[in-house]
């Protein structure tokens, strides 16, 4: 089962990293992550001079009695981080150049993140996209039992394999609707092989709604080095296209085009304030997750990436 595939020691080591300081920006993680959002909660934080519009129920009458001035009590609000894990399970993610398939690598990465999040009693939800016929969504919950449910669904998706050609854009738009009122962390694991820029635009939209967005751009090493030789017939994974070619004759052009694609994708996402991580499937999982968490921890509490 999926839980067997996740190395608990690895997850425990990741758990020691200062992810708490990073995720607390939204104050979602109880006890670890403090939100910079002020409101009415259970623990007093400070007084603030009354201004019209403040709720009268928060007026500290005792302070008024002492200083003849109106003060309003402010409280620190403990909030839970809502994390949406989006897995691109379209057919292109089935590609495996020799090691793990991209879908498998992406799935394990998101499972580890879900494990971490729920272990910290934050909410973790899952959306898998790719197959237009089947809608896979696990709403965010923080209960430990929920981790079991989430990982079970994730395991089903990975077992079913990568099918379909639906881009993650639809799933991202749905998250935008679900999290209209509450900020969330959205982590997308995808190869971003989208013929249009719908996915990138959807990510930018989420970022514009003040959500934290991280992207694991999962690519197979063969896709980056194109190590093929001899007469080869390439079959597309998301279409019926085929191409018989001597790879040596087109290698240079292909690598140039791939580099342009990576540069453009990275540039667009970084410009939109999205955390971008290129995840090669030959790279250790923990190294990739570490990159994600380290990047998030650099963000100061109360500061949003512009």
């Amino acid at each position, binding site marked *: 089962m999926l839980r067997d595939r996740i190395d608990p020691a690895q997850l425990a080591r990741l758990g020691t990293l200062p992810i708490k300081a990073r995720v607390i920006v939204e104050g979602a993680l109880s006890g670890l992550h403090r939100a910079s959002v002020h409101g009415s909660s259970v623990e007093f934080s400070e007084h603030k001079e009354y201004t019209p519009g403040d709720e009268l129920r928060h007026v500290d009458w005792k302070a008024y009695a002492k200083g003849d001035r109106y003060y309003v009590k402010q409280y620190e609000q403990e909030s839970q981080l809502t994390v949406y894990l989006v897995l691109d399970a379209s057919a*292109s*993610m*089935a*590609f495996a150049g020799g090691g793990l398939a*991209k879908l498998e690598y992406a799935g394990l990465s998101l499972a580890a993140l879900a494990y971490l999040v729920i272990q910290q009693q934050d909410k973790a939800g899952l959306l898998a996209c790719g197959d237009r016929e089947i809608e896979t969504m696990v709403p965010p919950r923080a209960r430990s039992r929920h981790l079991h449910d989430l990982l079970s669904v994730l395991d089903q998706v990975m077992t079913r394999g990568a099918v379909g050609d639906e881009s993650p854009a639809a799933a991202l738009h749905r998250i935008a609707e679900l999290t209209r009122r509450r900020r969330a962390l959205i982590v997308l694991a995808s*190869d971003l*092989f989208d*013929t249009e820029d719908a996915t990138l635009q959807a990510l930018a939209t989420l970022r514009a709604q003040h959500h934290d967005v991280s992207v694991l751009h999962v690519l*197979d090493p063969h*896709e980056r080095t194109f190590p*093929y030789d*001899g*007469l*080869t*017939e*390439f*079959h*597309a*994974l*998301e*279409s019926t*296209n085929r*191409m*018989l*070619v*001597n790879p040596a*004759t*087109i290698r240079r*052009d*292909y690598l140039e*085009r*791939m580099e342009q*694609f990576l540069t453009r994708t990275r540039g667009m996402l970084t410009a939109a304030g999205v955390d971008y991580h290129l995840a090669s499937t030959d790279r250790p999982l923990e190294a990739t997750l570490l990159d994600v968490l380290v990047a998030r921890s650099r963000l100061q509490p109360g500061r949003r990436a512009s």
Partner: protein
Amino acid sequence: MGFLAPLMLIGILAISVPIAIHLIGRRRARIVKFAALDFLLATKRKTARRLRLRERLVLLVRALVCVAIAVALAKPFTSCERKGPHVTRGPQAAVLVIDDSFASGYIVDGKPWLRRAAEEARRVLIQLGPEAEVAIVRASEAADQPSELTRDHVRLRDQLLALAPNARPADTTRALARAAQLLAASSHVHKTVFLFSLMQRTGLRTDEPPWGKDGPQLVALDLRPSKMTNLAVTALRVDPDPGAGSRGMAFDAEVGNFSDTATKVELQLSIGDRVVARGTLDLGPGEKKGKRFLATLPAGTRITDASVSITGDNLAIDNRRWVSASLRDQVRVLLVDGDPRTVRHDDELFYLEAALRPGDRDDSGASVRTITAEELAGIDPKAKGRGAAPQIDIADFDVVVLANVAAMPAERVAVLADWVRAGGGIMITPGDHVDSAAYDKTMLPLMPQSLRDPIDTTWGASPEDRDSRALHLVKWEADHPIFTPFSKDAPELADAKFFKIALLGPTTATADRKVLARYTNGAAALVEASIGAGRTVLYTSSIDRDWNDLPIHPGFLPLVQQAVRHLARKHTQGGQAEHLVGSSVVLATGDLRRLEVRGPRGLGAVFEGDRITGRSSVRYAKTDLPGVYRVVGTDQTGATRDRDELAFVVNLDPRGCDLAAAPPSALPPSGTASGAPPTDHQRRIELWHALAALVLLLLLAEGFLVQR
């Protein structure tokens, strides 16, 4: 189209092999399910298209190779009506007679007719088959001919390829005769002469049939163009034109229109490389007309080549004719009359004067002064003081002729000897006033050989026997400049009768003594020797008709003129005579020790060493092209320069310019020495050679496509 081995067409099924290879090859391609295929398709769509096209081309080429090999093995052929001669394949003897005269350079469809004839001959050679013994005989005049038939067809084909029009006219009759000789030596029953000729009327002689009734079979190929026209410069001569000044020359060109239509011809006269005059000439069908150009030689030029040319027909070689134009040097001759008479025709010098100045014209080439033997005393400085004779400056003369002059005093002889030694020329002719004993006493310094008493060959003979006992000139040095105008048996000399001649005694102290001509009794007739830088010539009979009748023969005039010019070192230049292609030219060497002849194609021959030492002339025979032949000579001092006086021109034999066809009756009858004529008029053309070549090309293409 048919096939000799149609079963081989089954091999076309082999076309399935490349198709199978193609399909298997596709299957053998490694299949990779690739996520980023859109990158490949987007960026290399053109490459993919090219790859697909290349694959299909390779398949097509391989399929064609299979089909072509199978069809080639089936030996396809097609057939057509024979156009060429009836050629029987197999053991036989055959001679291919090909006209390579200059007329064969006639341009037909942009290339010489000879190329077409050679191509036809090559086809016949192939059709005869390797067992046929064949020879190629060229039909141009004086062409080298093969000595035997051969089966070496490769060499024969090379000969055909190497054939080129030469500059001689056609002599088809002689070539056919040679072909008959070659075939007569063959043991084959089937003997054929294939004639590839323009059938020029001038090349076929009906009076000398090359063979009789039992001669070889004659197959004459009709390769003559339907219409052949030709314009040619057939003659050109140059003469001094005193009316145009001292350098004036009149060039008389004759142009022939060898066609059946009237035409207008443009002519141009070139002196050296410069065109100096142009003109036109209207010529009717088959008409020849003359055109005169008057021109002056360039200043400072005494001798040069000139040519008249026309343009605008298909046979270029006869459109130009050359001539050597020279200003004649006046030879200054002092005639000493030893027997002057008041009756003109009895005078010793009557004939000689007339011969040296024919018509007493100023342009005769000689200025003559006649004096008596007594007046010759005027050359002696000692006599001048005594006033015995008017003063004569001997240095004003090139040649002195002592005609029947009695022996002179030693002092006067010494004066003459000094003059000769300095470069003068003296000619001594005996007569009744010449006493051999007196000559021995004083005249030997001028004599190449001493004189003895004359003999009268008709002494005691009756008048009717007189002619039969006369002597004649024989054995003259034909190469000597004096005898250049004469052939070896020229009747104009040989017919002259000599009744009395002076015999010769011991030789004198002169150098290079040489007998130039002898009589029929072996006695010397003309003896030459060098005295210092000059020359002396002794003629052993009288210069008038007292001892012989040579003066009334046509040879007398050129003989004495040549002798005088030779003594004056002003020879009649070789270039002034017309030389036809192939003729030999005699070149006077004088004191040259090396001589180069440069023809139209560059250096033609070098005469040096033994080829020139001790010779007064050399003979040049490589006149195989029309044009100007220049001569470069090196004298005894080592100085090398152009010898314009020796340059000569060579022209085509104008007989070959007439391209008119001979009637069929001019050909010899086809003989009986032939096999049965073939009845099959269909000619089979085998196609497998072309298919084999196609296979090679396809394999090359396949290799090229696979390597890409």
